[in-house]
């Protein structure tokens, strides 16, 4: 029985459980529903949960455990000379056996007999069934594959029986426990709570997954390149292995990338923070309801525009515009019409990213400013302060920690932004202070190192993972700090 069919049957049992459970509860109540502890639906759900949950869990355990058991049994049957080989080779062989067994199960009994009779035809016969083999199988593999198939079939039969028994038994047990004072609702809600907890743990799992998916490769990188060279190196130049040379060393200094990341982020924040903050102040303190209802969603559109669109905007409009304007400026001043702003530069990328970040700053700050208690506002106005004095001297200081927290979150977004920088800032990993020149960021290098011509086993590619982890840690620190500050702020009003 296939897994999906099995799941379907279990689900049907569950639905049936729900129906009989609710009915039984209603019957017990005998017309006076309030004599039940919970509504009949809860009793039904309780039965359904007991019918389905244990069965599905058992199924999951079986699905994980049985291949492990089967694999070790099959491996036990390997010839001694195979067992003597390295674990990796054995794994490979086992993989191949897996493929063969998949192929075998597609054959008719006659074809199978024919195949056992003449093992050399295996590759062609199986290929015809759409199962590719990397090489001709060794004779023991055929036998092992057959064992594997038999055990898998047996396991699948057991699995179905087990799941169905558990489903029916669970449902029946739950059904029997139905009594008027039985606290079905509490039980059902308990299960719901567990589900909610499960949903929240996905965030944790994602983090674990991210770290895990980068860690091994990052470790490989650090095996090849000393950590201090990476973290404190000031030159980024992971060049190709010079033509012909086998060794592929390079310089993997993180510092220039970090500098570029921070510089571009800084420029972006320099654009986004004043504009966003003033926009927020205007909208929350001055604007009429009408203006606000138009301006706010329009500004928020800026947050919804895909970053790749910003990237193109930077590439085809803002960059050339800045370049041309700088040429005009220098022409006016020096008479030499050569641009001092490059089309791709820290300024271009930072500026466009800043525009993208405006709504983040303005929306977050807007919320925080409106959260400042009205009493403080009244207090200041009542003393004869003007609106702007009230904002500057009372509201902003009071909201400052919250705003700083919001800004840190915005900053961490700036640090993680990729597409705009790829298109607008270029890839030159340089350390310099001129905002009119290109620099590059960590994220850009992650993309480039992963998608180049580079040899995928070399540090040149692996460095992407080290960069990824580093960036992850940086944003994590920013966020911890942001939380810390926001907490402090909350305490003031609670």
């Amino acid at each position, binding site marked *: 029985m296939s897994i999906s069919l099995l799941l379907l049957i279990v689900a049907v049992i569950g639905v049936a459980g729900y129906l009989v459970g609710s009915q039984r509860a209603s019957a017990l109540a005998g017309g006076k529903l309030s004599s039940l502890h919970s509504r009949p639906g809860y009793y039904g759900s309780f039965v359904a949960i007991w019918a389905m949950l244990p069965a599905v869990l058992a199924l999951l355990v079986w699905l994980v455990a049985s291949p492990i058991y089967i694999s070790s049994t099959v491996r036990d049957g390997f010839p001694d000379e195979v067992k003597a080989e390295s674990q990796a080779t054995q794994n490979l062989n086992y993989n191949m056996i897996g493929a063969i067994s998949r192929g075998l199960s597609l054959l008719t009994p006659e074809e199978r007999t024919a195949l056992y009779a003449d093992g050399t035809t295996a590759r062609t016969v199986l290929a015809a069934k759409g199962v590719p083999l990397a090489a001709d199988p060794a004779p023991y593999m055929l036998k092992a594959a057959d064992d594997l198939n038999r055990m898998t079939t047996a396991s699948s039969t057991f699995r179905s029986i087990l799941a169905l028994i558990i489903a029916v038994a669970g449902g029946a047990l739950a059904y029997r426990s139905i009594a008027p004072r039985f606290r079905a609702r509490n039980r059902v809600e308990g299960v719901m709570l567990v589900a*909610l907890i499960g949903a929240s743990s996905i965030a944790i799992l994602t983090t674990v997954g991210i770290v895990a998916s980068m860690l091994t490769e990052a470790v490989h990188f650090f095996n090849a390149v000393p950590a201090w060279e990476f973290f404190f190196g000031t030159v980024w130049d992971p060049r190709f292995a010079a033509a012909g040379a086998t060794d592929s060393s390079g310089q993997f200094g993180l510092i220039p990338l970090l500098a570029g990341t921070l510089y571009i982020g800084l420029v972006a924040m320099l654009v986004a923070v004043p504009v966003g903050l003033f926009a927020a102040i205007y909208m929350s303190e001055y604007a009429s309801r009408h203006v606000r209802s138009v301006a706010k969603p329009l500004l928020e559109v800026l947050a919804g525009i895909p970053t790749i669109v910003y990237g193109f905007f930077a590439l085809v409009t803002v960059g050339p515009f800045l370049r041309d304007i700088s040429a005009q400026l220098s022409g006016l001043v020096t008479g030499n019409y050569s641009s001092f702003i490059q089309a791709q530069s820290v300024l271009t990328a930072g500026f466009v990213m800043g525009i993208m970040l405006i709504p983040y700053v303005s929306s977050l700050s807007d919320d925080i400013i409106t959260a400042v208690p009205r009493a403080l506002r009244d207090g200041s106005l009542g003393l004869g302060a*003007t609106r702007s004095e009230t904002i500057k001297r009372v509201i902003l200081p009071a909201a400052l920690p919250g705003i700083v927290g919001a800004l840190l979150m915005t900053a961490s977004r700036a640090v993680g932004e990729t597409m705009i920088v790829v298109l607008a800032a270029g890839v030159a990993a340089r350390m310099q202070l001129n905002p009119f020149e290109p620099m590059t960021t960590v994220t850009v290098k992650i993309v480039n190192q992963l998608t180049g011509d580079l040899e995928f086993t070399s540090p040149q590619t692996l460095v992407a993972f080290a960069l990824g982890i580093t960036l992850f840690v940086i944003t994590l620190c920013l966020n911890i700090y942001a939380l810390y500050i926001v907490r402090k702020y909350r305490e003031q009003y609670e």
Partner: protein
Amino acid sequence: MSQVSMSPSMAALGAASRPERRDIGLRGRYAAERRFRLYGMAAIAFGLLFLFLLLFSVVSKGYTAFQQSMITIPVEFSEQIIDKDNERATNPQKLVSANYPVVARDALARVLGVAADDRAAMREVNGMISDSVRVQLRNLVTANPAIIGTTQPVTFLAHGDLDSAFKGQINLDVPEKDRKISDRQIGWMNQLAESGALSKHFNTGLFVNGASSRPEAAGVGVALIGSLYMMLIVLVLSLPIGVAASIYLEEFAPKNRFTDLIEVNINNLAAVPSIVYGLLGLAVFVNFAGFPRSAALVGGLVLTLMTLPTIIIATRAALKAVPPSIRSAALGLGASKMQTVFHHVLPLAMPGILTGTIIGLAHALGETAPLLLIGMVAFVADVPATPMDPATALPVQIYMWANEAERAFVERTSGAIIVLLIFLILMNVGAILLRRRFERRW
């Protein structure tokens, strides 16, 4: 009140009793007030200005992509070329592999009056027709073999270079050898345009075709469907999971170090560079779980993980904003905490949740980098039937077209951006309508 007549001396007294008027610097303070207000307006104007600039720059570059030059001429389905030996009854493959481009070329040459034996001219004539004519004519013939031997008017795509030239996007001042279209072809173009054979049509192909190396036949059909699948997956997964997680964290979780950890963690996930999610998706969904590469399913899962933090953050804020009095009211009536949340708090928080979801979806819709690693930055010609089939996404298509060498892709890139923005707006409008429903406060 009292009715006593007034005396002048008393008036003086009233004025004198007023305390000395203090100088509290009103002029300067009001100037500062006006300046401050002005800054605020300037900030909003600045933001809006760039929004409009951005939209203007995209639209002005891309609107031409919605038109496509087509050639309508009578085409002779010559038996000589298609099925010389009349084998089609016995060998249907014959009709499939026939040399249809020649059919179209000959038809155009006839209209232009080019002699069939002028090979150089014939090649240039061929260069005016899109290669996609092969499939178009083949489909016509296989659908109706009786057409062979007759002459029918057919409308087919002009070659991308001709299209660009016809739209005036090729600089005709440069030497002939430095451009993709020759002087003779320009002449023919004008001739065709005058006779009405060459004209611009609405470019439906842009919306329905899959990727193509020929700009004139390239469309965002596959990308559109891929994006649609992914958005559905993101919506179906991230909304319930995100809401469930937020409910737990906001309503049930004890406030302790561990919940702090989760909170920081979620904020951090919102800031993790999107390409890192691509690495995660490749490792978990493709390599570990064995889902197919390039599939919208995997893309959707990756984007789901990426969107979750945004939705959780927004949902928690929305839950927080529901007045506690509603909770106490329900609890006081004997509703359980779970019932309170699901019956009262959640419906009230819905508008905020939807807003967060929209922001998250918009973010997901515009993502390219994570899709790169799971094989969705790809050339996919066939429209995907299920989310398990290979597909691309709109931003990916934009990215790929932007890197094409052909001139005709430039306008298409902006055209695709317009399509993406329209998609975005439609999504937003949908959510706003939905939000309206929930916002019906009594």
